[in-house]
């Protein structure tokens, strides 16, 4: 399923056509931060290194033209060998534009500063992400589990390595659904 991993880790591909997006504004607001833009299906995606992402988010929020005052969603994507992406979906209630911010974490260091200092909305979303993926959010005001039992801090259900997927695939094979992409 993940045999083809070249596209996301190497920035050698041709830059996307970013006309018609808010990239120029974002680039201005995030000057001094390492940013790599990418054109998403709907929204603009920017990749920011993990150690700079909270500063970048705060700039995006306080910037007057961008005014990303609303955190739509915060989650993570387990990329197995490539580490994990923490994804922030931002929105501006005044300017009505969207932005997706991604920060890549290495598997050896699943730590990130908390975004609750930027938006309060990140509180429960980070708690959920932490318990589901095992990402530690430094400085989180309430680092308890959210959906999982309080003592379930050693297994992380949404990681790809969590066994549920294998069980389901085995069931799927038994039922006549062949594994795709292998």
């Amino acid at each position, binding site marked *: 399923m993940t045999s083809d991993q070249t596209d996301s880790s190497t920035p050698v591909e041709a830059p996307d056509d970013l006309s018609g997006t808010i990239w120029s504004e974002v680039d201005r607001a995030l000057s001094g931060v390492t940013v790599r833009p990418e054109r998403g299906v709907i929204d603009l995606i920017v990749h920011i290194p993990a150690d700079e992402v909270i500063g970048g988010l705060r700039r995006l929020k306080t910037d007057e033209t961008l005014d990303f005052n609303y955190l*739509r969603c915060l989650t993570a994507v387990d990329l197995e060998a490539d580490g994990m992406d923490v994804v922030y979906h931002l929105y501006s209630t005044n300017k009505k534009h969207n932005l997706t911010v991604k920060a890549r974490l290495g598997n050896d260091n699943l730590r990130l500063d908390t975004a609750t200092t930027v938006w309060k*909305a990140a*509180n429960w979303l980070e708690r959920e992400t932490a318990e589901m993926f095992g990402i530690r959010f430094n400085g989180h005001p309430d680092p308890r589990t959210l*959906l999982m039992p309080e003592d379930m801090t050693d297994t992380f259900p949404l990681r790809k390595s969590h066994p549920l997927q294998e069980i389901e695939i085995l069931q799927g094979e038994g039922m006549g659904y062949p594994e*795709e992409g292998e």
Partner: protein
Amino acid sequence: MVASRETYGTEFETQDLLLNVGPQHPSTHGVFRMVLQVDGEVVKDVIPHIGYLHRGAEKLCETMDFRQGIGFMDRTEYLAAFNAELSYVMAVEALADIEVPERAQWIRMILCELNRLSSHFMFMGAFGIDVGVFATPFIYAWKEREQILDLFEEVAGDRMMYAYFRPGGLAWDVPHNFKARVREVLKSTRIGINDFDGLLTKDEIFRTRTQGVGVISAEEAIEWGMSGPSIRASGVPMDVRKDEPYLFYDQIDFNVASRTEGDVYARYSCRMEEMWESVRIIEQCLEKMPDYGPIMPEKMPRMLRTPPGEVYIRTEAPRGEYGIYMVSQGGNRPYRLKVRSACLSNLQALKDMSVNQYVADAIIVLGSIDIVLSEVDR
């Protein structure tokens, strides 16, 4: 306004009581649990506990192909399942770049707005019980909701778990008398909303109970990521249907119901107005919807695969923004699926809204944000 411990002096030492509300309590709307720290009747702190209904829908969807996932979306948001399905199929369509036929889009709109009506009726009824009317509003609302569910059953074959939207269009065409039936339902709905308005909205006790209670300011609401009627009641007219139109909402004339007070009554009356707007939207959709036409694209692959990519689709569900973040790495199933739950974000603000008010206020504040626990826990 509210007597606190400080006003009594310090001769007597008092102790706050921890009151556990839920997960088995008549007014937690499911398996929500909150621990209220009460000083007499005054709530000093609220500690919400969720997760009792966590079924791992996101993880399960990663193991299902795109069509199988639709059924799970119904179960994440069982009071507005059409809206939940819509986000999901729109995400698949955006990734796979599928064009949806016009007629299918109109039908989707009608069903989603009807579902909004049925969901708001559910809210009205449950809220009536929360403020303490014995069963009357509940049954009035239930009666109207029943009409809509009957219509859904005729269309999709199921009353709550429809699995009717498919990537590309619809599972099958609507019955031949669909338009007439919708008009019939709308007629009774209009009477129902009117009845309900007379029953609760103008009630003196209802107003004293709800007005000025559970206030949250616009800034706080944005900060907490609230959405839907809960944020619109605070004076932020944020509505995905208007701001980023999907389906054909840009061709429809409708208002975004909005209030400025941000209290329980504002959230209630926002929903009340939204119901009238939904009726208007459905009427316009019925005018514009073609009678005949395809409901699926000409060429749909038997096994649906998407190219690698990711998309965040948001739609305006009755409780707020229902978002689907779908990551695909190719293949016939999502690599990662995240359901952005409006209820989860709305629930975060519960503490801000209910602290320093009475226990009875905390109950109606919880009722006014209209949570569906299966969406919170997923």
